[in-house]
Structures are given as structure tokens and as C-alpha cells.
């Protein structure tokens, strides 16, 4: 559906909620949610993410696109619906950082991609450890804006290793974009260049684990 994809991208970039919802509803037949996610939603969000990385669209457009799509997918595939991808267990967090926009966008995009994940909000290293053990989390996504918060991921990882926790860490946010070596420095398992890229990275890890 290349033409439909184009229309959806245009509707999302111009933050036209009605047009975006209409495009998806036109192709919805009551049981093809995952096909729509795979063929329409994910490619559109990935293209918008790439356009942001290239400096062609702005973060506000990425944010609004993710919200618009999340709202619609929540209608078609409500939270808790057994059709959502809930395994392996995953969560998203902001580690000792007070900037929540990045996490909000990634959360929306992953949910728009059909994933079910826990939102830990803003947490410390100790709280994160407690939560991932209690919830048996296999994949943890961490969003950061500030460099000190990004560096704290290394402490988290050391503690995870000490406790023999195998949770995979996917990290992202401004510090990782400005320093391509940083995700390795903090011993993360993967990084994503932008919010939509996190969906791609997550898909890869999920495939590996299942």
C-alpha cells in the first residue's frame, strides 16, 4: 500500500488526527489489526523517525504522530488485549532523569506497534533493579536526555551483572545520538537512533529471545 503509506505519513506529519484515523479505518476489516500495524503503522512511524534523524521533520511532529497512532491502535487493540505482544516481558523507564518526552514517544510508538509493556516512569538504579526482578522483565528500554543519567546506566548494568540478571538493556536519547560510542561505554545491549528505531531494535531482540 505505498500510496496509502504516503497519505498516512502526510496526515501524521501535518498532525491531522482525523485524516490519519480515517486512512487506517478505511483498511480495517475487524480482524486485520496486526496486518495494518505491520504494513501501515510501523513503516509510517519508521519513515517519520528517519525524517527526524535527517532534520526534515521536527520532534513535535514525531510526538504528535505517535500519540495519534497510539490512540487509534488502543481502540483497535485495547490495553490488555491478548492480541498484544506481551512476551518477552518488557518495560520502559527514565533513569534518574527529569525529562520524560523521549520515553513518552517511545512508549506510544511501541504500543502503536502492538506491544504491551510496563511504564516505570522515573526511577533510580535501586528501584529499577527491584522492579525488573519483581516483574521478571527480560527487556528494559531506558530513555535519557542528560549525560549523567545516561552514565548511570553503567551502574545499573554492573549491579545487574552482580545479581546475575540477564535483562537486555536498550538505551536511547540525546547523549547517545551525540556520542555514538556511549551505549557501549555504559554496557548496554543495544541503542536506537530515534524513537521509531527503537521499535526496529526491539523487534530484533524479541525475535532473538522467542
Amino acid at each position, binding site marked *: 500500500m505505498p500510496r496509502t503509506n504516503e497519505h498516512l505519513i502526510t496526515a501524521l506529519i501535518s498532525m491531522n488526527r482525523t485524516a490519519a484515523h480515517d486512512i487506517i479505518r478505511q483498511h480495517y476489516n475487524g480482524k486485520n489489526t496486526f496486518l495494518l500495524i505491520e504494513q501501515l503503522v510501523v513503516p509510517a512511524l519508521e519513515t517519520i523517525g528517519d525524517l527526524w534523524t535527517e532534520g526534515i521533520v521536527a520532534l513535535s511532529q514525531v510526538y*504528535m504522530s505517535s500519540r495519534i497512532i497510539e490512540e487509534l491502535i488502543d481502540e483497535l487493540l485495547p490495553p490488555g488485549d491478548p492480541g498484544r505482544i506481551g512476551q518477552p516481558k518488557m518495560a520502559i523507564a527514565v533513569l534518574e532523569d527529569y525529562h520524560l518526552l523521549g520515553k513518552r514517544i517511545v512508549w506510544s510508538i511501541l504500543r502503536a506497534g502492538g506491544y504491551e509493556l510496563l511504564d516505570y516512569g522515573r526511577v533510580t538504579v535501586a528501584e529499577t533493579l527491584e522492579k525488573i526482578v519483581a516483574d521478571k522483565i527480560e527487556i528494559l528500554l531506558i530513555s535519557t536526555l*542528560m549525560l549523567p543519567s545516561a552514565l548511570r546506566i553503567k551502574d545499573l548494568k554492573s549491579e545487574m551483572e552482580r545479581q546475575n540478571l540477564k535483562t537486555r538493556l536498550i538505551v536511547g536519547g540525546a547523549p547517545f545520538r551525540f556520542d555514538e560510542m556511549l551505549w557501549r561505554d555504559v554496557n548496554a545491549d543495544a541503542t536506537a537512533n530515534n524513537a521509531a528505531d527503537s521499535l526496529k531494535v526491539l523487534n530484533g531482540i524479541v525475535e532473538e529471545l522467542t
Partner: protein
Amino acid sequence: MTVDTMTPMQRVLMTLSHKEADRVPFFLFPTMHGARELKLSIKEYFSTAEYVSEGQLRLREKYHHDCLSSFYYGPAEIESWGGEVIFREDGPPNSGRPFIQSTSDIERLPVPDITEVPALKRVIKTTEMLKKEVGNEVPIIGVVMSPFSLPVMQMGFDKYIELIVDHERYFWQLMEINQKFCINWANAQLSAGATAICYFDPVSSPTIIPKETYLKTGFKIAKDTISQIQGPTAIHLASGISLSIAGELAETGAVGVGVSVEENLADLKAAFKNKLTVIGNLNGIEMRRWTKAETEENVKQAIRLAGPDGGFILSDNHGEIPWQVPDETLVNISKAVFKYGYYPINEPDPKK
């Protein structure tokens, strides 16, 4: 020529007039490093004007950069509305829970009296102390958050984007309040002795909002606000890109622009040539792990790309050096400026 023949003020003024001074000026903004210098925690350091003034002067003695800064931390402005500031040991303080929780809160929001806010009073006192110390020899840079970017701390980034997109009336109401505050705050710093104002406006960058939105919002607000600031103003986009709005930035009345490492410095220099002085664009995040050789190379490259014909001040890309950048790296930046920064700078590399 390998020695300074101008004062930092003369050098910066000549650079701002798009002429070659004795050498390329460099602005370091090690906002928090003064705490390390005085062996204090970041929170203690920012608790009195005397500490920050002493810290700034000691750092300039060490790095020989061409400015002083009276900037403390972004959320200081948030304290004016009773907002919470959260300190940490290894980085700049953050603003806490946004105090605008719903659009209707905007209707009740006052324009704070800046003379009543302890954090702002400390900044003013620091500015006065620095001015007393350096007179007209070294420029003192004051900082304001732009009316357009301040709401990120006032209400949270996600809610603010939604305000811009969906609630035009409340958006302009908030801008009116913030603009009055910003102009008062900038002019108070200038009266206290600041030479110029850095107008921090990351939300105006095409990294954050599309150009068409910027033209209707951030651009108009910047133009109107800067016209009422009674001194030279530079716009800083705090790592955000700027090339696609270069023409508009030049029309705001600013004299300089802080540019991103995500864009090519030669392209930036060409886009702003004879219009705005380019300030940037060393990568502050990578800087924490630069070797001496990498530091020298990065400084040399930046100077060679943007130094010729003036209109360029070497600085970092964000307007603040992260706490994690070692003092030694800042010394190495300084040494490289004194090695490669003297005009004329386009001479062939002697090593090649």
C-alpha cells in the same frame, strides 16, 4: 603573531562586527566546574553569589577563555513561580514537577517580580561582582530562557507541544506572561553589568518544531522580545539545528547564534556570514572522552572551517560544558586555541 594584542572585549566586539581580531575568541561555559575548583558540591556552589563569582574568575584564570558567565542553571527562572529545583551531584539541577497542570492554570499565572526571587538575586549579585572585577575588559554573558522555550519547564514538554498544537489562545496568553518576565530578567542582568544576553531558545530549532510553526510562534516572539532587550543578544538553540531557519534567525535582531554539531560548521558559517556570529560547535558529550590529540584536532578543524573573516566564536555545541568533562580537556582546548587560533589562520598545516 602568536600573542594576544587585544583584550577579550575588543576581540569579541571585532569578531561580532565580522572582522578578524588578533585571534579567534573562545567561550567556555563550564557552569558547574567552579564547584570542583572550590571543592564544593554543585548545590553548595550555587548557594551564594560569592562562590559562583569566585568560581568563574578562577576558571578564566585557568582556561583563559574570552568571557565570564553569570549563568547558574535553567530552573532558576522556574523558582520565580515557586517551581521546584532538584539538585544532583553530577550534573545541572533539573526542574521538578511542572507547576502548570492544566491550561486553566495559565489564566492565573502572574508575571513574577524578579527582585523578589532569591535565585535571581544571586545571579544579579554575581554579575555585579564579576563586573567590579573585570570592568570592560572581559565580556560577561547573562542568560535568559526564551519565553517560547520556558514552558518546557513550566508545564512539561509533552503538554507544551499539545498546547502549541491545540490551544492557541492559552499559548499566546502564556507567551505574554513569559515575554514580560524575560525582558525584565534580561534587562536586570544588563543593568547589573552583563555585556550581552544569551537567549536560550531550543524549542525554536527545527529539531523540535517545524519551520512553519516557528514562523508563527518562536520567530515572532524572539523578534519582539529581542527588540526590547537593551543590549546585544545571541540566540542559542542548545544543540538544535538551525540551517533551515538561518534567514529568520538573522532577522530576529540577535548578533550571534549558538549552533549544533549535527550540522557542518562550514555550511553554518556560510549561511550566517556577515549576518550573525556563529558560536559553536564542539561536541560537549563526546568531549568527556577526548584525548589530547583529538581535542587539538577538533579545535583546529573548527577554527579552520569557521575562523576566517571573523564572525566566529569557538564554543561548545550546547552552551554548557558537562560536569564529566575533565579540567585537563578544557586546558587542552585552550592550548589548541592559542596554537591555531591566531589570524591569519588559513596558513597550511606545518605538519603536512
